[in-house]
């Protein structure tokens, strides 16, 4: 085959998938970018296609939206930190404490929730945190008073931490597995206490894993609207909820588009930050 014909073959194969992606996805993203600078005519409800910064001006000046943006980011950070803490012991055990058979079983068990319906997993917590749920049953059993965390930001924090924990566990297991045992032994032989070994050897080497996991936990929490609607309360609106409620006939799609672009900017900024900590080097 001549090089020219070979190239032609590649192009012929690539046109359908990338044509599809170009039209339906990149096309959609372009329309999103443009429509963020459009407006909805207050009288007719029609979209006016004139270039304006008005949507962004409102988003940055109206405290309703700055509070929502701060809450979304704040909970995303809190969830990320929680998942890092929760992931450590289990990731350590999976990576370094068990034989290959048990390791495989544990990895499947960790991945299982990820592949079962997200709605089902959120719904599970409604059943657990509800008034007559598992949690209050357990509290009564040990003689403690009922809790009322259902439909609060605390419930949201628990549910998000639960939902995205596997995303943190996987890259952390991978990072911890790669630490050479000889390094830990050497540190121990030099007289380092376990705590010193952890602080000076294990933790620094796990940073890329934590950074990789945090990209997921942060981004998917930031972009969600389902959990705030199902387990959050009155003060649990996320950026995604504003976007969601502005889409449809009576909504303001350009405004939603503008807010979603801010979301995109924040997620992209976080990814760049995580990249500096080696989030994308490990895999």
């Amino acid at each position, binding site marked *: 085959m001549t090089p020219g014909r070979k190239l032609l073959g590649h192009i012929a194969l690539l046109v359908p998938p990338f044509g599809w992606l170009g039209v339906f*996805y990149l096309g959609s993203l372009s329309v999103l970018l443009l429509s963020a600078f459009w407006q909805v005519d207050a009288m007719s409800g029609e979209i006016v296609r004139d270039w304006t910064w008005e949507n962004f001006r409102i988003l940055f000046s109206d405290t309703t939206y700055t509070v929502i943006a701060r809450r979304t980011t704040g909970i995303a950070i809190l969830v990320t930190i929680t998942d890092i803490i929760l992931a450590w012991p*289990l990731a350590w055990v999976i990576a370094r404490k068990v034989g290959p058979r048990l390791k495989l079983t544990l990895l499947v068990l960790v991945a299982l929730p990820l592949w079962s*319906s*997200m709605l089902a997993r959120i719904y599970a917590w409604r059943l657990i945190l509800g008034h007559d749920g598992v949690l209050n049953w357990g509290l009564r059993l040990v003689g403690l008073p009922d809790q009322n965390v259902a439909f609060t930001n605390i419930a949201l924090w628990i549910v998000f931490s*639960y939902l995205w924990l596997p995303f943190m566990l996987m890259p952390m297991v991978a990072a911890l597995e790669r630490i050479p045992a000889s390094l830990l032994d050497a540190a121990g032989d030099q007289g380092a206490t376990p705590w010193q070994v952890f602080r000076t050897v294990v933790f620094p080497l796990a940073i890329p894993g934590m950074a990789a996991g945090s990209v997921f936990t942060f981004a998917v929490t930031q972009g969600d609207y*389902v959990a705030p609607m*199902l387990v959050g309360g009155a003060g649990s609106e996320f950026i995604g909820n504003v976007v969601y409620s502005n*889409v449809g006939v009576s909504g303001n799609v350009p405004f*939603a588009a503008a807010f979603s672009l801010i*979301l995109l900017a924040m997620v992209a900024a976080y990814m760049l930050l995580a990249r500096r900590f080696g989030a994308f080097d490990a895999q």
Partner: protein
Amino acid sequence: MKHARNPVADMAIWAAAIAVLGFLLLPLVIVLLYAFDASSVQVWPIRAFSLRWFAATWADEEVRGALLISLEVAGLATLFATVLGTLAALGMNGLSTRTTQIGSFLLTLPIALPGVLTGIAMNSFFTLLDIPFNLVTLVIAHTTFCMVIIFNNVMARLRRLPPSLREAAQDMGATPWHGFITITLPLLAGSVMSGMLLAFALSFDEVIVSTFTAGSETTLPLWIFGAIRLGQHMPEVNVVVFAVIAITILPIIAGQKLAASASREH
């Protein structure tokens, strides 16, 4: 392992690890159990077990309609994504690392970006072009984010295929097309199949992008979402959730088995 010399710390780590594993798995067990709750109000502990809600849910026309739409969308999206994702992988195979990286980055975008972003982008796109929201827009949206699953699977397989196989076929006088059909394609079948199962599960379970592209169509996840929000049909929700978990997890496990046996062949 020097940590192991401290038995108290070691036990603490194991206890914490088991507690975290419980945190991950118990909610799933609990939600699965509720499907067998005889009561119409969810109270823990479950007082009586029964299969009555399975029958009631199956008899519900709305649920059956939503199930049918979900199966149609997931089936069609998987089919299109399989063709497109396989083409992308075959076309990209043998190109420079840089080109492959850019290509796979573009294909990954639809699932890497927050779903709400993909959702509203496609919503704006179809609205601008005056395309009505229905099964077609749903299938287009799902195909777009399922492509990468197939692509990744096939790409990983192609990387492990020794190029010598096809060269040998050509040396024996096979045309490139003949070599592809008789050598490459059969070797790819396993990875394509496992990719299809994953893509089907992904599509079958998707709720965020679907909300923005479904119009008045109701997929099964959209039905669940609506029912939970309004607090209606809760016993049926329990059963549907049970079924959805079963329908998504079984293909995944089958897919992993396929992928594992496919990789053992080499």
